[in-house]
């Protein structure tokens, strides 16, 4: 056999991008099971529908772009986008909402930017925000968690029927079953009710929003798995959770009736899903660990501000998209110190030097 001539390194771990995506997908299982347990089979239907739509959309665009379809589908990034969006949708959301949002996420937010690795924004969150703005009624119609309201009356058949026809099997419309989420309730009643009165509402029930805390623990467990296995670093989730906790604690300590406690903020909404699965999307996040910490803090701050003073109940999606915009800037300022260098070398220094010179020159001639 003729000897090959290849430069080093000669070996790789070579797990494939698909294995990273697969582990993230596997890590959503605890959260997914908790959601399905608390909010019924509609969650599973949404996830499957979104996953299939994502794969189909990706395949379609790859075909149009003349790319090898199976090679790219195997990286599972489209499937992951679909699953994450599916997990974020209300359980009885109509099927066409799911399909519209997922197709938009994959086709516009991802593929039109150049496909995997090139998208500026988190595709799942672009899909989510497009839906939230376009179909606010459907997107805010959440079911009560397990054991609350009329949740006991609904089975998998009802979920299927509701999603595809808008009515449960008994013929009642979805509206008859929906209920405000804890964060929604908070937004509506924060001004009028005291903390005790608020927590007496059944939707809070347990320590941070009935059912929701279980869902958050599920995603937290998956997130810890990803961190332990090295698929994500701790920086983004710690920044996000830390910023949210510190801000809510400060405001809560100052005026407990007006501002919700950190527990509600951390375990009452989509915080853990956002912190470990959404904000950590490496493509649209910052690059260095310091940058990721700042990215997480930014998402946390924006989320707190919108949750507290904005008109949307949850704001992880907005926080992530706004910080996606800031990621290149963060990268610019957070280049780590290289071995043997005294200081962190900022890219800006290398670039700004000639520019500054040019501007002083032009300024001088102008004067």
């Amino acid at each position: 056999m003729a000897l090959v001539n290849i430069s080093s390194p000669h070996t790789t771990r070579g797990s494939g991008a698909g294995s990273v995506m697969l582990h993230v997908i596997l890590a959503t299982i605890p959260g997914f099971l908790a959601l399905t347990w608390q909010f019924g089979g509609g969650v599973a239907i949404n996830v499957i529908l979104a996953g299939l739509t994502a794969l189909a959309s990706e395949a379609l665009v790859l075909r149009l772009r003349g790319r090898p379809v199976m090679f790219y589908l195997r990286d599972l990034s489209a499937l992951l986008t679909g699953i994450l969006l599916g997990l974020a949708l209300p359980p009885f959301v109509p099927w066409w909402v799911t399909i519209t949002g997922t197709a938009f996420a994959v086709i516009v937010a991802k593929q039109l930017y150049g496909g995997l690795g090139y998208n500026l924004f988190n595709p799942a969150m672009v899909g989510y925000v497009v839906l939230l703005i376009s179909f606010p009624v459907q997107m805010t119609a959440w079911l009560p968690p397990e054991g609350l309201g009329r949740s006991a009356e609904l089975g998998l058949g009802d979920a299927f029927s509701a999603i595809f026809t808008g009515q449960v099997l008994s013929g009642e419309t979805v509206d008859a079953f929906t209920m405000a989420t804890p964060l929604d309730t908070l937004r509506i009643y924060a001004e009028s009710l005291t903390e005790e009165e608020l927590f007496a509402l059944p939707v809070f029930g347990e320590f941070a929003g009935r059912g929701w805390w279980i869902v958050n623990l599920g995603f937290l467990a998956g997130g810890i798995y990803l961190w332990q296995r090295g698929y994500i670093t701790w920086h983004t989730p710690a920044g996000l959770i830390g910023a949210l906790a510190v801000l809510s604690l400060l405001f809560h300590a100052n005026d407990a009736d007006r501002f919700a406690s950190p527990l509600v903020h951390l375990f009452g909404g989509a915080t853990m899903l956002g912190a470990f699965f959404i904000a950590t999307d490496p493509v649209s996040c910052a690059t260095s660990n310091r940058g990721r910490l700042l990215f997480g803090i930014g998402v946390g701050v924006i989320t707190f501000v919108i949750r507290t003073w904005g008109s949307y109940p949850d704001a992880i999606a907005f926080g992530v998209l706004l910080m996606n915009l800031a990621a290149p800037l963060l990268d610019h300022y957070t280049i780590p110190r290289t071995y043997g260098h005294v200081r962190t070398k900022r890219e800006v220094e290398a670039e700004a030097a000639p520019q500054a010179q040019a501007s002083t020159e032009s300024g001088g001639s102008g004067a």
Partner: protein
Amino acid sequence: MKRPVFEYSWGIHPPENKVQSTERPLEDAPLPDRLVLPLQQHIGAPAQPLVEPGTRVLKGQQLASANGFISVPVHAPTSGTVLEVAEHTIPHPSGLTDLCVVLEPDGRDEWTEHRGIDDFSAVAPRELLDYIRDHGVAGLGGAGFPTAAKLGSGTDSDIEFLVLNGVECEPYITADDTLMFEYAEAVVKGAEVIAHLVQPREILLGIEDNKPEAIEELRKAAANSPVQIVVIPTKYPSGGEKQLIQILTGREVPRGGIPADIGIVCMNVGTTAAVWKAVDSGEPLISRITTVTGKAVDTPRNLEVLLGTPIRSLLEHCGVQRDALYRLIMGGPLMGFTLTDENLPVIKTTNCILAATREELPPPPPAQPCIRCGMCAEVCPAYLLPQQLYWYSKAKEFDRAEAHNLFDCIECGACAYVCPSNIPLVQYYRFAKGEIRKAEHERILAERSRERFESRKERLAREEQEKEARRKARREAAARAQAEKKAAAARGEKPADPRADEVKAAVERVRAKKEAAATPAAPDNDNQAG
């Protein structure tokens, strides 16, 4: 007393694959038909040949002498006859040829006269350095830097640590492991010789915890010596000089600097043992331990190999399966380079011959898109952002790549090893470095030719001015002559006859010529003022 190891988070754990070659004892490689000895097996100036075709040489005799301070001589690994001194392909990633001495062994293995130094501590450092250089000792770990030159930098500065590198972090390679196990004594003694030269406050020998037998032997050998055996975790690339220094001392070699700048001298254990061999018995560096391993050989093992031995002979000795041999590597699977010719010789820096099958080191799979997962940055021992360097190299934004300290990349390959998308990252960096160097080279060339062009232009302009000045002087002289003639005419000196006129004109011309010859100085001055 157990010495602490400093904190670091970089590095990878590739499969070690070291067991295969350590199961069999060390033995001498067979004497080949001919030895090919490149005159440059080290960094620096190539050695200068002392022999001619037909010269009979003895074992240990100098074949080529050191050429300057950063150079080492080459010695005959056995007795025999010089066949030629000619260009041959050398084991180097470039695949280029270089001057080599080709020696035909006579099989008698007859030594030249040699003896060591009885008491090295009585020898002046300068003299001892010369002695080490004359015995051909260059770094056996990787780069092959002349040992005397390295120690020379150590004798000139205040050295706090002498760091001995017995890490051997690359998979498959067990040459240093074998050396430390078999010749622990020589390593420790060599360290004492080097310590005599650089006078460190502490001597630290770093070794990975995957070599328990060698650690035990070293501990026994170092029992009554200042050499401290420091066991460090097994992690690639801990064996990089800068990385080991960081692990053992917590210090970082400054950018563009050498370890001596921060009071450290770092030596490979094989080099250290070679120093001892030279000092103890006077034997120059003519052989080394090389690991021959990989699935394409039946009996992977470590061999004591004469320098210049063709790799073919080692492969055959270890039962090579040529049908299965796919990739032949000198060095390890992460930083070694492929060879396409089995006739290349073993040189001073050849620590391993890896004969891999296709299944063992398969061709690289197609690269997937970079998902910026950042695993590369987690493992980078230089704290770079490999994925940023990749994007910039790919987009040919070389200024940005340089701003991200591309040239601090040691090309260890850890980033490419962990990359889930199988992107050949190091190849991108090499491309970018090459392009930047090329552009820099071209810039220098362009600068030089611009200077040449401008000075030529200046010279031509100057010559033109001088010519112009002479022309002007002539014109002025002619005009004066004309004016005088007219003045004479105006005074009414009517020419009596044509002949008189002619005579007068001739006289006039002569005078004008004389004047023209006398005036050049003045117009020249005018020109300079202009």
